[in-house]
């Protein structure tokens, strides 16, 4: 007993001593931001978002650099999930990180703050295609569809699938029917396998592209809900999958770790250069599924917020 106690005391003393001479990683980084930002609207607000955002370049460090915005504090909630939504709705937090296509934004009248300086990189929907299968006919079909997919369209599709529990393929066909596409068959003779990542939005997008190609004469098989990028990109490279709906920013990061483009057009241009030789991207849709800073309509009204830059104004 006495031995154990002595041992613990020794360990505690040793760790205290050691910690006293450890190097301080935060000596320079902190305090400057807080002093600069005092008195702003943001300094009165609590932000909620996923833990990883705290250390991401488009997180607090990016807001401070791009907009001079520093929130009162950062509360770890979850990744655009129910904890974030409930906390924002009930006032535990005042601003939150949600995805732009989240049905909860509309359902709760949340306000998405615009991001004029592209702090959050563009994440436009873009089909990633096996170059051999991307005939002019196939490209024509894909481009026609991509031109119609806006962020609002994606929100509606997600609401149908995630809130109303509609079958993704049924939602996709309903959307295609509403477009009144031409009845020509430019993709005739092409055989494709369409894949998707394992989240509802991506599945619906894959269904839309696959059904459209089928309608245009191609022979299409589907391999949906494959998993994450690390799982399906090898499939695209070895030819077991020919098409997958992707997002421009994250895909660019995947192929080029050092990429710095953030605006939609620059990202798309960089992406075209970064994809491996056997793959290609067709035209990107205007639909974006990216992180956004979201506030309640009451907060937006109280402080007159429409853009992230407004948060740096004096309260």
């Amino acid at each position: 007993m006495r031995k154990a106690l002595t041992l613990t005391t020794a360990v505690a003393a040793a760790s205290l001593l050691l910690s006293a001479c450890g190097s301080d990683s935060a000596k320079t980084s902190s305090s400057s931001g807080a002093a600069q930002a005092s008195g702003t609207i943001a300094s009165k607000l609590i932000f909620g978002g996923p833990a990883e955002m705290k250390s991401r370049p488009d997180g607090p460090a990016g807001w401070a650099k791009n907009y001079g915005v520093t929130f009162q504090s950062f509360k770890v909630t979850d990744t655009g999930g129910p904890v974030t939504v409930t906390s924002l709705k009930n006032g535990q937090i005042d601003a939150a990180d949600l995805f732009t296509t989240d049905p909860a934004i509309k359902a709760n009248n949340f306000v998405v703050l615009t991001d004029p300086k592209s702090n959050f990189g563009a994440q436009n929907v873009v089909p990633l295609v096996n170059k051999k299968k991307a005939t002019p006919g196939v490209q024509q079909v894909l481009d026609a569809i991509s031109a119609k997919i806006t962020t609002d369209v994606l929100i509606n599709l997600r609401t149908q699938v995630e809130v109303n529990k509609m079958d993704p393929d049924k939602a996709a066909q309903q959307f295609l029917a509403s477009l009144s596409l031409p009845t020509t068959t430019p993709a005739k003779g092409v055989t494709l396998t369409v894949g998707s990542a394992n989240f509802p939005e991506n599945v619906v997008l894959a269904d839309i592209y696959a059904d459209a190609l089928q309608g245009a004469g191609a022979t299409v098989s589907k391999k949906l809900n494959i998993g994450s990028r690390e799982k399906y990109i090898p499939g695209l490279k070895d030819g077991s999958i020919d098409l997958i709906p992707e997002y421009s920013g994250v895909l660019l990061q995947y192929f080029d770790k050092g990429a710095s483009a953030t605006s939609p057009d620059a990202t798309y241009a960089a992406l075209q250069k970064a994809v491996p030789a056997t793959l290609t991207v067709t035209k990107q849709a205007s639909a974006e599924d990216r992180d956004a800073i979201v506030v309640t309509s009451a907060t937006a009204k109280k402080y007159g917020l429409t853009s992230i830059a407004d948060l740096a104004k004096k309260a």
Partner: protein
Amino acid sequence: MSGVITWLNDPAHWRDRPADSFVGIPSQIVNHLEYSLIALGIALVIALPTGLAIGHSGRATWVVAAANALRSIPGVGLLVLLAVIIAPHFYGRTDLGYLIPTEIVLVLIAIPSILANTYAGVDNVDPAVRDAARGMGMSGGEVLRQVEFPNSLPLIFSGFRSATLQVIATATIASYFPLGGLGRFIYDGYHQQDYDQMVSGGILVALLAVLVDLVLSLVQRLCVSRGVSGRFSKTPTQDPATAALRTKEEVATG
């Protein structure tokens, strides 16, 4: 491993940095102990009287068996379920929407070992001792308070100590929601792919659990009657014959 030592050695991790929304190790230990002590307090208030009553009366022993079934509860699963039900009812700057579900889970985890050990402690008191107490004219309540309870203290303590260990280890689940505690380092470290932070959090939880257990063992030493624990002074006070025998034994065993 050297990364973990560096992380634990960094003074920046030992103080609160409001500008970075970082809560330091000492404050998180306080949070962690707070969540654990609330749960243990509630569990003790529920399980101790219940266990004593069941052990004393010998009735309703099925309650102990039923409480033991609580051990099979999946903590995080129940926590998420409770949070989904409870959290939407709390408005404004409060953590109660997530604190209450966490405490419920921790209390449910702490109850079985306290209850089972209290019951077993009272139930296993030598019937002859109980009989003697009765024969001396003690009432039922007096037997419970002055004979059964002191005699069952070692087992009650061991139940409470294992409950404490379990609760301190499990209190990390609080960080699944926007709460503090040492789980914060494990959860945030995992999501930020800062595995030094994650392992450091785990080590701190283990150290805290062991330290608290040491403290409780001291308390147990002070509380339990020496007549029950069998801990007597080593200086021989008995007759010289047994003393000589003992010395011989000690010499023999070294």
